[in-house]
């Protein structure tokens, strides 16, 4: 899932300064699962903003709404009349959701600006309740079949394809003693799977154009298009 962090409240307040009617908009997708931008987080942030503005004697109307997914137009469309009725939308979705709502809101008769309330951080998995860790960088050319299901791109600090480097010590990475060495994890996994021979495979120089180096990516499935 996409994991995000709520921005500091001062930053959020600055982004909506001078706006009277604010719609705090949540998303029931990934940000709900990582407890950043779901219905409850919308209620908490809206309440915080209401308390802060009332304490400063500012008149501000804070509305709340949460849609199924902000990155799907079919869920955003029914909300547009409400968006048109406010001065600014504060979106708690990931960057994709914010941009999608922003595009729809900018096309309204009275264009409305959409502000992000979340810093989108990574594609990750939940390790335990309240803990998420990065697991994928969406590089567009998966090598997990060779590395025993542990991604060297996301979990090695240097994204080495032929590791480990000399900075691996005691199973930890040189950047931080708290960070596991990705290649140590791969070695341990391959040994458990009896596939240690994969370690001696030299992965060739990679074509990074499938990743961000190739510019913004797009996926088109012709059979699904209407």
């Amino acid at each position, binding site marked *: 899932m996409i994991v995000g962090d709520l921005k500091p409240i001062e930053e959020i307040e600055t982004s909506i300064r001078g706006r009277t009617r604010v719609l705090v908009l949540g998303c029931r997708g990934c940000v709900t699962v990582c407890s950043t931008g779901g219905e409850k987080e919308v209620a908490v942030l809206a*309440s915080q903003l*209401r*308390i*802060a503005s*009332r304490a400063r004697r500012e008149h501000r109307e804070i509305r709340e709404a949460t849609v199924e997914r902000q990155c799907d137009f079919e869920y955003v469309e029914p909300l547009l009349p409400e968006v048109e009725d406010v001065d600014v939308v504060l979106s708690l979705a990931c960057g994709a959701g914010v941009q999608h709502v922003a595009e729809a809101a900018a096309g309204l008769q009275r264009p409305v600006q959409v502000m992000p309330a979340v810093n989108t951080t990574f594609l990750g998995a939940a390790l335990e309740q309240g803990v998420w860790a990065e697991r994928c960088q969406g590089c567009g050319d998966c090598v997990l079949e060779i590395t025993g299901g542990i991604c060297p791109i996301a979990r090695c600090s240097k994204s080495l394809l032929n590791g480990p480097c000399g900075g691996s010590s005691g199973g930890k990475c040189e950047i931080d003693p708290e960070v596991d060495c990705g290649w140590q994890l791969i070695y341990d996994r391959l040994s458990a799977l009896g596939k240690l021979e994969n370690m001696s495979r030299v992965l060739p120089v990679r074509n990074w154009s499938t990743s961000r180096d190739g510019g913004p990516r797009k996926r088109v499935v012709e059979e699904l298009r209407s």
Partner: protein
Amino acid sequence: MNSDTAVSDPYEPKVLAFCCRYCAYTAADLAGSMRLKYAPNVRVVHILCSGKIDTVFLLKAFEDGADAVYVAGCNIGDCHFLQGNLSAIRTVAYTKHLLAEIGLEPERLEFFHVAASEGPLFAQRADEMTERARRLGPNPLRKTMKQRAGGKLAREPDTHSPLPEAKLGRLIRHAERAEELRT
């Protein structure tokens, strides 16, 4: 108390207490049975476990003008649902942090352990929290709420006229009260 005196009265704190039914709420009952006197400013909200408390409820209480709020739950290890009180402690600590972020004193919110047998402790905590609210002064939101409500608190329970006599149980009472408030 009528609305005129409510406006001219000096600051009288409104304290909200979320009490777990298995401990603090029973302790409140005990305090009553023991004829203990404690601050009348405390409004008790009965919850099934302190673990039910949510950041949203706590913030809403301050939004609606409470001067202080506390959650009272079981002693460590005594929770009827095993870990509800531990979860409540975390929720209260997190909400204190949220209040501090927006410039409201985190001391306005507290968590207390009160066992079912501790009626006197319940009374003591109620007094303590009321005293704390008195020291901290009114919730800054109260003034704006009063202004918007035309000099009265938006939700001033004491200004409601007494309930009409119940005819067919609770539902009728609510309907009648709603009707009365409308007129």
